[in-house]
């Protein structure tokens, strides 16, 4: 029952503003006790709330006189509660800080995290660089025809150039496992008109006995650029930029003549040995250089096979082995490790580190 007369309100106010409320706030020893006091004094069912409700029954004049006093009391009590709460919290924090004693040297509990295969990581790094250099991505089948894998690439049947790439053939069908990703270049040129820049990353197959340095299955990225007026000098500049992005800006490159049926002129590209810096070590067979890529100007016969006019368009092509780059960057001593999938191997390589 709310006090409704002025006298009743005044008497409630006097009681409330007396020392008892203040004392009980000050003497609360826990946050829970304090909360009980607050509810009692300031809560929805407290005497103060009752007084505030009763105010509207008074005359305007009484209200003007009495309301400020009540508001001031409320503010004061709230401030006292707040101050006491801060004191209690602070001492509780202090106690907690004093009491907790974790052995922080215990091992971390790590969420399970997988790894991308080092070859995936290496391939991604290379394709990222080449993408920034304006090459788009093309893919093609692993199983190919003689035409795409050889003939359109100026490697006729019964030609000694086929010795360069020992091939797996399929039984009962005139198909083979691609020996390079160059067929993808042919497929791309058949479907797109120049100018173009494309890379063809992927898995390739060679009929080679498997040992520490050879794998019958490996990965390549081949690139192709076709435009008007592209020269061997552009090939040199582009590949040097790529290799310096991949191995560091001070990487030295060397171009020397070679032979690929689908390029003319052809080149092998070497980088200064990353291990010894050129002074000669087992990694570079004491030569100071490491063979890293094959490249050359697209052979006019290849352009003819896809219907590009070699007198109008010119271009360069290159190929780089992913395993070879991974071995150089990661120091992996044996090709077979890439295909054994020993977790002790796979877990060593983190995409942030290479």
């Amino acid at each position, binding site marked *: 029952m709310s006090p409704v007369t002025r006298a009743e309100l005044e008497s409630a106010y006097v009681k409330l503003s007396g020392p008892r409320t203040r004392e009980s706030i000050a003497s609360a020893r826990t946050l829970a006790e304090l909360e009980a006091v607050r509810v009692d004094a300031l809560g929805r069912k407290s005497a103060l709330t009752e007084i505030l409700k009763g105010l509207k029954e008074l005359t305007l004049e009484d209200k003007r006189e009495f309301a400020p006093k009540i508001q001031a009391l409320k503010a004061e009590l709230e401030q006292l509660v707040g101050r006491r709460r801060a004191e209690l919290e602070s001492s509780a924090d202090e106690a907690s800080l004093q009491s907790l004693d974790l052995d922080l040297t215990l091992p971390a509990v790590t969420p399970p*995290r997988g790894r991308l295969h080092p070859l995936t990581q290496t391939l*991604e790094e290379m394709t990222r660089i080449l993408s920034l250099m304006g090459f788009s991505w093309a893919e093609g089948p*692993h199983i190919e025809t003689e035409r795409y894998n050889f003939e359109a690439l100026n490697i006729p049947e019964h030609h*000694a150039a086929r010795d360069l790439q020992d091939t797996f053939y399929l039984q009962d*069908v005139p198909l083979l496992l691609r020996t390079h990703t160059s067929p993808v270049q042919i497929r791309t040129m058949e479907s797109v008109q120049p100018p173009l*820049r494309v890379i063809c990353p992927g898995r390739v197959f060679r009929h080679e006995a498997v040992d520490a340095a050879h794998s019958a299955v490996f990965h390549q990225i081949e690139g192709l650029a076709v435009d008007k007026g592209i*020269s061997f000098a552009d090939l040199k500049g582009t590949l040097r930029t790529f290799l310096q992005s991949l191995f560091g800006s001070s990487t030295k490159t060397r171009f*020397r003549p070679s032979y690929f049926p689908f390029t003319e002129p052809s080149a092998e590209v070497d980088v200064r040995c990353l291990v010894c810096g050129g002074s000669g070590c087992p990694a570079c067979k004491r030569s100071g250089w490491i063979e890293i890529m094959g490249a050359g100007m697209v052979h006019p016969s290849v352009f003819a096979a896809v219907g590009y006019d070699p007198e109008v368009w010119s271009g360069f092509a290159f190929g780089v082995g992913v395993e070879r780059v991974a071995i150089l960057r990661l120091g992996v001593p044996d090709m077979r490790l890439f*295909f*054994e999938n020993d977790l002790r191997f796979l877990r060593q390589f983190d995409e942030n580190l290479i």
Partner: protein
Amino acid sequence: MKILYSWLKEHLPLELPAQDLAERLLQLGFEVSSLSTRGPAFTGVVAGHVLSVEKHPNADRLSLCVVEVDSEKYPVVCGAKNVAAGQTIALARVGAVLPGGFKITRSKIRGVESQGMICSRKELGLGEDVDGIWVMDPATAVGQDVAASLGESDQILEVEFTPNRSDCLSHLGLARELSAYFRIPLRQKPAPVVPPGAIPCGGFKVEVPQACPRYVGRSFEGLTIGPSPGWLAAKLESVGLRPINSLVDITNYLLMDMGQPLHAFDADKLEGGIMVRFAKPGEKIVALDEKEYALSERCLVIADQKKPVAIAGVMGGRDTGVTEKTRRAFLESAFFDPPTIRRSSQALRLKSDASHRFERGTDPESAWTTSLRATELILKLCGRDARSSEAVDCRAPATAPSPIRVTSGRINEILGSVFPADAVESSLRCICASLEKQGETMNFTAPSYRRDLATAWDLAEEVARLAGYENIPYRTAPMALAPSRALPAQTVADRTRRRLAGLGLCEAYNYDFISDKLAAQARLQMRLIRVKNPLSEEYANLRPSLLVGLLNNARLNLNNGAETVRLFEVGKIYIPSGAGVEESTHVAGLLLGPADKHWTSPRGRTLDFFDAKGVLSELLTGIQGLTWLPLSDAAAGQAPCDPLFHPRASLRLRLAQGALGTVGMLHPAVARAWDMDREQACLFQIDLDLLTQEEGPQAKFTPFSVFPQSSRDLSLLIDDTARYGDVLGTVHGAGIAELRDVELTDKFTGQGVPTGKQSLTVRLYFGLADRTLKDAEVTAAVERVLTELQRRHGAILRS
């Protein structure tokens, strides 16, 4: 090919050390895979002092010498005219071995004992240009070992020539190349001196001139065939050939010297005149390697009237070969069509030094000049009575090669270089047969041995090679770019890899091959794509599934002490499709072992089917219209890998377009085959190509309610045969708009649960987008759910 440096110098006056030559060769495009030094090819030869020379009592041309070595005196019979008392000479004493394995023994010559041999430089394999014995420097200490005093006398370079440069596969050929590079003229050897024919040439006929455009034949009589002289034997040995007899050695020597393969037949073993033709069905031949070859009609042969006597361009026949007994011989020097020889060689799986050159292309002109050179040597080395016929040259008419028209401007355009016109021209002049100028245009005619030069691009490479690739600038021309996007296939594969690595799986790379045995162990009883020429049985087929590789990887890791294995692979699988092959990109995963096991939860728990299901659910987040069906459900359809999975513990994932993949536990027989009965491995495989076809939705923001949700836990007692999926379906099907989500929070049987029942606790979440739900509304909704669960599944609330 092995190149003996001193032999090369016979053709070209080179001064630079062999190591430097190797560097230069690399810059020319020829890798030197090894460089070794070679000491003299003899032992037991010492420096001796000639005390006296007397005429041999029984022979006019021989002398009887006494040679002193270390105060021992040796009587030696010598045939050289230049021997004289007081000389220091090279004495091969009894026991010495000369090039070709010729051993010095105690012997009697015309009745007089000879205890050794006074050697010429030629006999020691040190040169062929000196007549008579080697008169050594008088300062040479008597008794000194001659081989030791010469030290490391020569170098052998193992040079790798690319298939386009067959013209370099001889000492002369490489010298020719280096002559152009260093701009040093070749040493011109005097033209061979061959007397006019003294006998008729044996008959021969080329029946297939396209396969054999040139055949030069010559007959010999009165031959005496024996061991080769030391210089010849030493040369052959230095390049890895075994000396056989003088005539055969001459042919091998000229092969290595001039690059033209020759073959000599024993004319007395030939039955009638010979012909060049393709083999007839059923014909066979025993070749010089003592193996019998069944010839096909693809094989070009040399045949007499009765039988094949040689596999043309590949290997001669054993029975018509030249031996020490041969008196009459027929010498072949030919130019064969390269693809024809390659076909024979491949059909017979037989390679030789000759086939290596013929299939890459030899020089038709060299067929003539080498025959001449051979004749000169045969008449010199195969007996005093040796006589030869004139050569018969059977040559198909050939069209003269058309010159390559090129300007230095065009060459600089291809190379991006700025070589002056006269430098380009002078480079080309070094390698041409002829070069005529018409204004700026050069008409370049290639020599007959450079079959590889046909276009302006070929000449550009020559100019660049001779100038050095390092003299071409680095440039990156601006390039017209087309808009480029990653391929869907690439995007899906990349995203799959990243998600799975993020979900704790390590990526594996396996070969695409699988053995019959492993396929059977994995219960993959389908037709496999077979490789025609596999490396071994292990690699006999292309894989129809990625799972076998992952099982092998899991086994390996368990063997290596791993407890938990989480692996995945993205790769191609190969399935027969009609007459062809269908290859598609899949992703597979394997999980086994303890999860979340560490010091705060030492027991952890074991990865199980639901972990695999969870990985897949995360992987496939965002894929619309995905359904999961038990493998046993007819609607799941059949898939090739099904037999590998446990039929009652596997689910098929389907999209509207078809089966997307499978997830499940291993069939017990497969688990046993990999010795993983206890591990409870769970695997999945998903067809990524199917996801590629699915156009990925671009993620869009969905607003969420700002009003609080309510939740209620229902502990249900329900038949233990009831499937949670059905219960969930009932809850969702109760038509309650306020239902936001359902979560299974507990499932158990046993204590407190009657037999045949299970306890499922589900938490239902309710909420509205525009206001807070009232208690009574939630309660009413729960009642409706319970009514439906009771009606459909007989479920009641646990008290």
